[in-house]
């Protein structure tokens, strides 16, 4: 994290000097300290509101939003048209009922969500805080804070609004805060009281007066430009510049500081957090987009049908209908007569786009999300964290992921740095079984007071920016911006070199029980250019000056004094990093007093320079960091999470491309990439580095890498190539060589981007998205939030770095390895199920629609509806919705098989189950079934049997029978629920209609009883099923046997394995009963092989890979 932050600083242009920015900002707001009540209405109060609606605007606003969607507009239009009795074929209630139901359901859902937001807001608003009112500290609700109020906070308090720190319990004016709720970083950050206010006691702070000029509220949490001026009797300085280091932002927490107080400058929704908050726009899955497209196509088809039938109807009317005296058309027609028939057909065909599709998809989606929440395989025992699907609407996209962009630290790794090994003066400690801390050799050396070891450990304990904090029971815990430093310090403390205390300029270290005190004279901070950090300390007892340094190997080796052998250490460091360990070298040297004085002057000069400060400091540091005495090297392991390598391998087999976006350095990133199976090791795989510090360098490098890649891809030299690019080169590549970079990325299945900033991460996601790939971003920290929100699917790891990422994400998992199951099992099933559900939903309404269209040809193209209102409404709502909903339980192949053959996911990625051509199949099926039902019904129910209501119900029940068989045919696994849903639905259909047939007033009175008693009716049903399902089943079986899809093959193998397994057990039983079994031993062996072969990896490459490991 620390590294990333530094990078970001690097990437930015040099800061605009404060003076100029202040002048610009003078036009912002003026805050009078401690006079919150002076202009209570000038700024908003601290009432936080995240709600979308209020009581008054809920209905209009919600309706407006709902009608923003095309489908809803369509449904409303249809419903309105139906109010015109001249054209409506059915009772308008048949559309208005479901429509109102759907609208009220989604309105209720919105209202409920908003109410929950309101409750959370209320909780925050009514929290009690201490605020100075009229010079007296009073306890008021957080929402009553006004700009200018002085707010007092204690340790662990949440900051209620954006404030400028005025005082803290620390005499130096330091205050520690945790900002994880804003940026997800859990390390403690230091905030300082502006210098004019340092040292004010709490009494004075009650009375303090002054003015703060600051800009208008904005959302940039890293920037805060303001001026502070105190009024007499306080030190009447000139304007004192305020930066973000003097602020406490809303929703941070005060840590390690007894109390702090500050003046509120931005309140309520005008805080930095409030400004950046906002509901992320809803994500649309590829399936949704495809359904929209198909719906659009259906709509076009519908319009075409309406136009054709409308014309035909009008033509028929003008030629034929006038002769039908019994129809009695009036001679004078109103002007709108010509649109009446087309509109009738529009209404007749309106069910082509069923309202139910939206409802059943929504229901199914929430079911998928529930399955994810419930999944025990994705529950982490250790942290008691289940997987959570925050976004319930995008499960299908999981099955269509093509690119995964992943963070490294904390996502692939545990983010739990463990000090594994070290090398002190040529001797190595720690091996594969034992950490260095437990190595007896090291402990022995320690007991013998080996000076080299002590030096080494002292550097470990002192040379860092770790803050020790002592809990009441005396134990010391360490808070560090860098996990590595924390690991080093705690390792040292395990070896009895304990960092006890760190005040501003003084460090207390207990070395084997004896307390040593060091004055810290200077800290030469870590920068990514120098790749090392140093501290200059003076030992209190002896007065000796020492430089303690730690840093990357190459940075240290270049500055050790000449007569020292670094080769041995270099070898060891290489060994360490090949094991994927993060290495640091430690060194020190004694400094002579006069040398320090000289240098110190230069250093101060450099530090206070305004131009090129960083560069100047670096130059001065080189003067000091030379002639070092190399002490040794440390190796820290950031353990890979369990199962990361397997997960990545499976997902890569599934055709998913991986990009690793990390703030880490190149070597570590590459190493982790290798150990995670990101890329095959040489010779099969190759890493290509895109480097360069200038535009032209990067360009050349890109071209070179691209050429290598093209050559290797044509020659099949490598199975696997990946490119590695760092943040700076990426910046250039994205800016100037977008085309080249895109080409490169399309050739590479893997990319490793190191030293990238959060915004670059988001940019990369955006880039991959722009190539029309489905992307999934996974990360754990606040720095991943932007990329998570940018990607089609965002997954957060609820890990060590807080819940920031998990909260922003669509799915949160406890461990990376659950991703495999999330994608391969849940994603795939969701996609398959939705693909079926959506196409089936349209199919079933199309069947009915086609029957209506066919019927219109025998009813004088006049737009008569064959079906009555009740049947039309119940068809979608009652008769056909239940069995298809049971398909959310359907599994085409077992989870186990999917996990063994992740390649099968490619079907989903390519959208093979829901695309225009599969849909054309369903469309054709609807046409065929419509024709079958219509023709059979109209040929059986002829002459004296041709009674409208009877024919209508016969056709309807024909549809229902076909639906039952179609669902059954498309279901691969029948659970009890499916049996009940399919069979029960058929029974329910008859019960419904029998009940409806007892209602005197309905058109259906006695009809169902009548037809059920006819033998011809049952024969008709059987015929419809036989004629309707036969060809479809034949085609399906034919495909299954002779043109099997990969899914079919796996299905078959899976099932045969089960059957042979069962046979094997039964036949072995039989064999044991009768000494001579019917199956010969060779046959049985073959069977055994058969049954077990499913569980063997089928992939040659997999075998190779396992061999490799």
């Amino acid at each position, binding site marked *: 994290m620390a590294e990333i932050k530094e990078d970001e600083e690097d990437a930015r242009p040099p800061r605009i000097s404060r003076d100029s920015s202040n002048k610009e900002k003078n036009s912002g707001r003026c805050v009078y300290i401690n006079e919150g009540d002076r202009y209570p209405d000038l700024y908003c109060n601290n009432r936080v509101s995240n709600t979308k609606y209020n009581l008054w605007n809920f209905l209009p606003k919600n309706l407006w939003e709902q009608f923003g969607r095309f489908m809803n507009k369509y449904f409303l239009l249809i419903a309105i048209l139906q109010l015109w009795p001249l054209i409506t074929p059915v009772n308008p209630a048949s559309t208005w009922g479901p429509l109102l139901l759907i609208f009220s359901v989604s309105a209720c859902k919105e209202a409920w969500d908003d109410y929950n937001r309101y409750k959370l807001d209320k909780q925050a608003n009514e929290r009690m805080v201490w605020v100075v009112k009229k010079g007296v500290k009073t306890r008021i609700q957080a929402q009553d804070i006004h700009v200018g109020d002085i707010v007092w906070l204690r340790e662990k308090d949440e900051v209620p609004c954006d404030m400028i720190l005025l005082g803290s319990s620390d005499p130096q004016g330091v205050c520690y805060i945790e900002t994880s709720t804003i940026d997800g970083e859990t390390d403690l950050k230091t905030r300082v009281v502006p210098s004019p206010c340092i040292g004010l006691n709490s009494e004075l702070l009650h009375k303090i007066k002054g003015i703060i000029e600051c800009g208008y509220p904005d959302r940039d949490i890293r920037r805060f430009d303001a001026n502070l001026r105190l009024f007499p009797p306080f030190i009447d300085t000139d304007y004192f510049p305020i930066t973000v280091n003097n602020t406490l932002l809303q929703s941070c927490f005060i840590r390690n500081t007894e109390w702090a107080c500050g003046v509120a400058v931005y309140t309520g929704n005008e805080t930095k957090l409030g400004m950046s908050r906002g509901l992320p726009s809803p994500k649309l899955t590829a399936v949704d987009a495809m359904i929209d497209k198909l719906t659009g196509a259906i709509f076009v088809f519908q319009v075409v049908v309406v136009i054709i039938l409308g014309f035909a109807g009008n033509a028929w009317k003008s030629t034929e209908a006038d002769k039908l005296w019994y*129809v009695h058309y009036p001679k004078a027609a109103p002007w709108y007569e010509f649109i009446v028939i087309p509109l009738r057909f529009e209404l007749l065909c309106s069910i082509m786009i069923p309202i139910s599709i939206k409802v059943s998809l929504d229901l199914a989606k929430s079911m998928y999300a529930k399955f994810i929440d419930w999944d025990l395989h994705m529950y982490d025992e250790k942290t008691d964290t289940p997987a959570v699907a925050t976004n319930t609407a995008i499960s299908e996209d999981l099955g269509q992921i093509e690119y995964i962009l992943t963070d490294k630290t904390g996502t692939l790794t545990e983010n739990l740095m463990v000090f594994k090994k070290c090398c002190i003066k040529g001797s190595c400690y720690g091996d594969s079984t034992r950490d260095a801390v437990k190595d007896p050799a090291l402990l022995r050396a320690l007991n013998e007071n080996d000076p080299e070891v002590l030096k080494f450990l002292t550097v470990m304990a002192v040379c860092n920016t770790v803050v020790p904090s002592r809990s009441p029971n005396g134990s010391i815990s360490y808070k560090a911006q860098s996990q590595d430093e924390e690991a080093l310090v705690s390792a040292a403390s395990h070896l009895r070199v304990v960092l006890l205390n760190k005040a501003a300029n003084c460090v207390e270290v207990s070395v084997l029980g004896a307390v040593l005190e060091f004055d810290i004279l200077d800290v030469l901070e870590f920068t990514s250019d120098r790749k090392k950090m140093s501290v200059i300390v003076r030992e209190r007892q002896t007065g000796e000056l020492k430089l303690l340094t730690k840093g990357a190997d190459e940075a240290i080796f270049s500055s050790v004094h000449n007569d020292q052998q670094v080769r041995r250490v270099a070898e060891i460091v290489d060994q360490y990093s090949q094991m994927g360990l993060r290495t640091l070298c430690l060194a020190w040297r004694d400094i002579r007093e006069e040398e320090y004085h000289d240098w110190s002057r230069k250093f101060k000069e450099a530090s206070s320079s305004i131009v090129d400060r960083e560069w100047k400091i670096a130059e001065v540091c080189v003067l000091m960091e030379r002639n070092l005495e190399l002490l040794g090297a440390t190796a820290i392991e950031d353990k890979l999470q369990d199962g990361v390598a397997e997960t990545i391998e499976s997902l890569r087999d599934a055709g998913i491309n991986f990009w690793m976006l990390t703030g880490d350095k190149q070597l570590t990133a590459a190493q982790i990439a290798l150990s995670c199976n990101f890329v095959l090791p040489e010779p099969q795989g190759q890493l290509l580095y895109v480097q360069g510090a200038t535009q032209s360098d990067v360009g050349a490098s890109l071209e070179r890498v691209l050429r290598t890649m093209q050559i290797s891809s044509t020659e099949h030299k490598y199975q696997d190539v990946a490119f590695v690019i760092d943040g700076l080169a990426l910046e250039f590549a994205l800016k100037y060589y977008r085309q080249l970079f895109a080409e490169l990325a399309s050739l590479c299945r893997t990319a490793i981007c190191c030293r990238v900033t959060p915004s670059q991460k988001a940019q990369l996601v955006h880039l991959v998205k722009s190539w029309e790939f489905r992307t999934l971003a996974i990360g754990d920290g606040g720095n991943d939030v932007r990329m998570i929100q940018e990607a089609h699917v965002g997954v957060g790891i609820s890990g060590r770095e807080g819940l920031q990422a998990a909260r922003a994400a669509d799915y949160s998992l406890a461990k990376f390895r659950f991703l495999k199951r999330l994608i391969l099992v849940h994603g795939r099933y969701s996609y398959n199920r939705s693909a079926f559900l959506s196409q089936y939903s349209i199919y079933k309404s199309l069947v009915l629609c086609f029957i209506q269209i066919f019927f219109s040809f025998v009813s004088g193209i006049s737009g008569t509806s064959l079906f009555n209102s009740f049947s039309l409404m119940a068809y979608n709502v009652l008769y056909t919705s239940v069995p298809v909903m049971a398909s959310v339980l359907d599994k085409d192949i077992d989870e186990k098989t999917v996990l063994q053959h992740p390649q099968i996911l490619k079907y989903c990625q390519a959208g093979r189950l829901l695309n225009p051509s599969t849909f054309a199949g369903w469309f054709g099926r609807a046409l065929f079934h419509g024709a079958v039902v219509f023709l059979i019904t109209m040929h059986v129910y002829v002459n004296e049997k041709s009674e409208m209501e009877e024919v209508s119900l016969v056709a309807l029940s024909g549809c229902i029978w076909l639906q039952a068989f179609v669902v059954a045919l498309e279901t691969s696994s029948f659970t009890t629920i499916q049996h009940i849903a399919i069979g029960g639905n058929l029974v329910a259909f008859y019960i419904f209609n029998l009940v409806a047939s007892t209602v005197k007033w309905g058109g259906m*009175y006695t009809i169902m009883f009548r037809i059920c008693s006819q033998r011809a009716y049952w024969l008709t049903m059987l015929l419809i099923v036989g004629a309707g399902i036969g060809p479809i089943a034949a085609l399906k079986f034919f495909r299954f046997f002779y043109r099997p899809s990969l899914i079919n*093959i796996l299905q078959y193998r899976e099932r045969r394995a089960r059957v042979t397994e069962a046979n094997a057990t039964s036949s072995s039983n039989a064999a044991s009963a009768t000494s001579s079994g019917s199956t010969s031993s060779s046959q049985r062996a073959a069977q055994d092989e058969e049954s077990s072969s499913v569980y063997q990896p089928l992939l040659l490459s997999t075998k190779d890979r396992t061999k490799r490991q």
Partner: protein
Amino acid sequence: MEVVSSSESPTSSASTSTAATASLPPSLKSRRPKYSRFTQQELPACKPMLTTGWVISIFMAVGVLFIPLGACALNSSKKVVEIVDQYETVCIPSAGTKEARVQYIQDISTAKACTRQLLVTKNMAKPIYVYYELHNFFQNHRRYVKSRSDQQLLYGNASESSMANCDPQRLIAGKPIVPCGLIAWSLFNDTYSFKLNSVALVINRKGIAWDSDRKDKFGGSVYPSNFPNNYPAATNGSIIGGASLDPNTPLNANEDLIVWMRTAALPVFRKLWGKIERDLYAGDLITVDINNVYNVYSFHGKKKLVLATTSWLGGKNHFLGIAYLVVGGLSIAMAMVFVGIQIKCPRPLGDPSYLSWNKNKGRDLNTSPSATGVHFEVCGTFMFLEVKALCS
């Protein structure tokens, strides 16, 4: 606290869960999802295993079931005896254009009696149904089919909204027509009288409508009133409708009306006119005196008189039988095709070599198998076309 009660907890995590949850402090509620077969999507499922054997037997079974059924249906349909006599052209003066015929039929002053002789060719068992059959008559026209008021038919007076569909046969001089609407107005009014071998043949005209209609749909105390066909002279100039209604007969006693108002779904339909409750024998000659007054001439309609017996499937209709035979036959043919393919190009099912990623790594899914499957490919395509041809 979570208790895993499943006897066969399928996951390793489930089995270790009790220990893990027990170690948690009691105040902390575990967020562990509850185990149930449903939530884990582990409900025992029946996965039918498709084998060629199964498929062949299914198609055979369908064939074996359908063909006898079809034969049976066809046979019974063939046993139905029907005498059909189309009379609309022979019963009017033969010459003349359509206009002349329309004029003839609409002229209420001329008598339109017409005598037809029907020869019974086969013995007919009682009851023998007498139907009239109309062709090209769109009782299912949208304008027509709605033009009625169920409320009025039952209660005699009806609300405005209920009668709204009756237009243009709703009001005469501001008074509602009972029964209103186009359907009632266009009631079929040809009448027949039968003589068997010159002896009057009794036709039972009662019980031809549905009982439920007579009881619950048409009122016993609703009498026709203001009905335009009763005043043919008054419709001077405008179109003449169908039958007149006896203002002293309640609607539920007028079975012809009730039958007529069960609208037909097709433009060709038969409506029951009466029943002959005696057997007829081959060679019997039936003389029918037809009063041919119903206008089908303006739209080239046909009128037929039908005498028919019924079977257990209803009237004479070969469709069901033939369709069953065809579907059954196709089904057996399909089974044969599958057998044929199985013999000609047996294909090992579930062969892992067909998993495309095993054949050639990195190959596109869309490319069809070729390396090992050329033979099957050819066979498959050939058979595929064959099957398609059969299906269509």
